């Protein structure tokens, strides 16, 4: 098999008329939604500690004690879950030259004039930013989180360090929430995206419009591959 550049194993064209492309397999989708679920729970519990006006959110967990107890554990689950996702996705999220061109024209991106932008592989520049932002912030959050995890790591670092960890954790949390919003919004705004993570497939048009290079590669690979 020819070396894949813009797609990965599992990605394939499922039907031709109309074209339906498999973007994520069930494991990946499960992995994603686990991560997403964790993130939402973390966001809700974390926000309840972040500002008094949001403390009521801890009620969703049965109160502050449980929210406090669960939050770091969910963080650990998220971290591990995201780690798998990361390993699965990292290769196609490595930045390329086209990403630069693509990103340098946000007006066209936001106006959805993608025909005027370079063709993208499985992930476009914005998606890659989300990916790397998530990666970076999750690392920061897990490290700082452990430093402030009173129940098990109370003596791990000095109190001044812990203070810095705490403020870092909260800033990182704000940022990851912003990234999260962008991610979710982009998925909604870019119609036809969400089914990639629900059904696992996207339409050919969607792939053609947003990730044409990926589609091309899949089409080419499909032809070159062994006959079914």
């Amino acid at each position, binding site marked *: 098999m020819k070396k894949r550049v813009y797609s990965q194993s599992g990605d394939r064209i499922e039907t031709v008329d109309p074209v339906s492309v498999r973007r994520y397999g069930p494991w990946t989708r499960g992995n994603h939604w686990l991560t997403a679920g964790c993130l939402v729970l973390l966001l809700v519990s974390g926000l309840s500690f972040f500002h008094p006006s949001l*403390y009521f959110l801890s009620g969703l967990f049965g109160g502050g004690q449980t929210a406090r107890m669960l939050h770091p554990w969910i963080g650990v689950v998220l971290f591990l879950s995201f780690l798998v996702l990361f390993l699965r996705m990292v290769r196609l999220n490595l930045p390329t030259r086209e990403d630069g061109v693509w990103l340098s024209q946000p007006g066209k991106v936001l106006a959805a004039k993608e025909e005027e932008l370079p063709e993208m592989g499985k992930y476009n520049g914005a998606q890659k930013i989300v990916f790397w932002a998530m990666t970076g912030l999750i690392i920061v959050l897990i490290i700082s989180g452990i430093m402030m995890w009173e129940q098990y790591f109370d003596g791990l670092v000095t109190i*001044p360090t812990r203070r810095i960890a705490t403020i870092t954790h909260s800033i990182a949390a704000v940022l990851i929430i912003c990234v999260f919003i962008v991610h979710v919004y982009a998925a909604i705004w870019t119609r036809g995206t969400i089914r990639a993570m629900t059904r696992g497939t996207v339409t050919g048009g*969607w792939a053609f419009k947003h990730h044409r290079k990926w589609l091309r590669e899949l089409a080419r690979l499909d032809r070159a591959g062994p006959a079914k």
Partner: protein
Amino acid sequence: MTAATPPTTARSNPPVEQLESYFGPQDLVRRSATLDQPAPERELTKVAKLIDVTRCIGCKACQSACIEWNDTHPEMEDFAGSYMNPHDLTPEMFTLMRFTEWENPETNQLEWLIRKDGCMHCEDPGCLKACPAPGAIVQYSNGIVDFIHENCIGCGYCVSGCPFDIPRVSKVTNVAYKCTLCSDRVAVGQGPACAKACPTECISFGTKDDMKAQAEERIAELKSRGFENAGLYDPDGVGGTHVMYVLHHADKPEVYAGLPAEPRISPVVETWKGVTKYLGLAAIGAMAVGTTLHGLMGRANKVSHEDEEKAEDLVETEEGTKR
């Protein structure tokens, strides 16, 4: 029920008939994670505990009395090269004698400095500022900073918030503990258990004004004994404290087992609980609003029928007529 009167001394015999406590929820001046804490209708006289380090013999009666009054059960540790036991404050040991063998460089004399460590009951409490749980830490207008354990979530933010490294979170209950200034005793007109027990009366208790006046007398007496730098430790950085020390070497409090010279709520904590909180919420809000507006105002990024056809074309071109 008769109402109790505020205590003016540490040494009186506790009542056995029920008394109504002289302060309560109506006297809160601060309440953790609470935005709209109303100002109390009355202002109680400030109380304070004065610890005259120069009279302290390090006997640990305060620790003993504290354990007994608060019904705590500190773990027995081992001998670790000092009289200090337990080795640190714990969720079950709210106060601790810290021993320092210090050779005074000015006199070349050995001084055995012994300081009773514990909650300072800051006027501007860092623990309360850091606490995310509404009502888990409260401050009464008499100055007592108390933990309301039912509201505590065990996050340990108070530990980060405290400039004196005092609160300890229990591994058993996951609740933070510290000296309450024996709020239950003070409420019925009694001084704290440690102050009552202190054999050399190095711990006094009363109104903050009285304690400051007493400290002045002590300092004058110490100066007459050659301790020129004797002074009161009531640090401004935290708005003053309701536990104060008389020190022989007030110019260098650090020699007393690291008593901070200029304690204040850490700027990191201030920023975290101040600017970060508001900017963070603003950023999240802005992002949410921005995307919503974009969603409402702008057009969705839709795939056209044309795109679908082009895709089919592409696939066919690339794929040939295999299928």
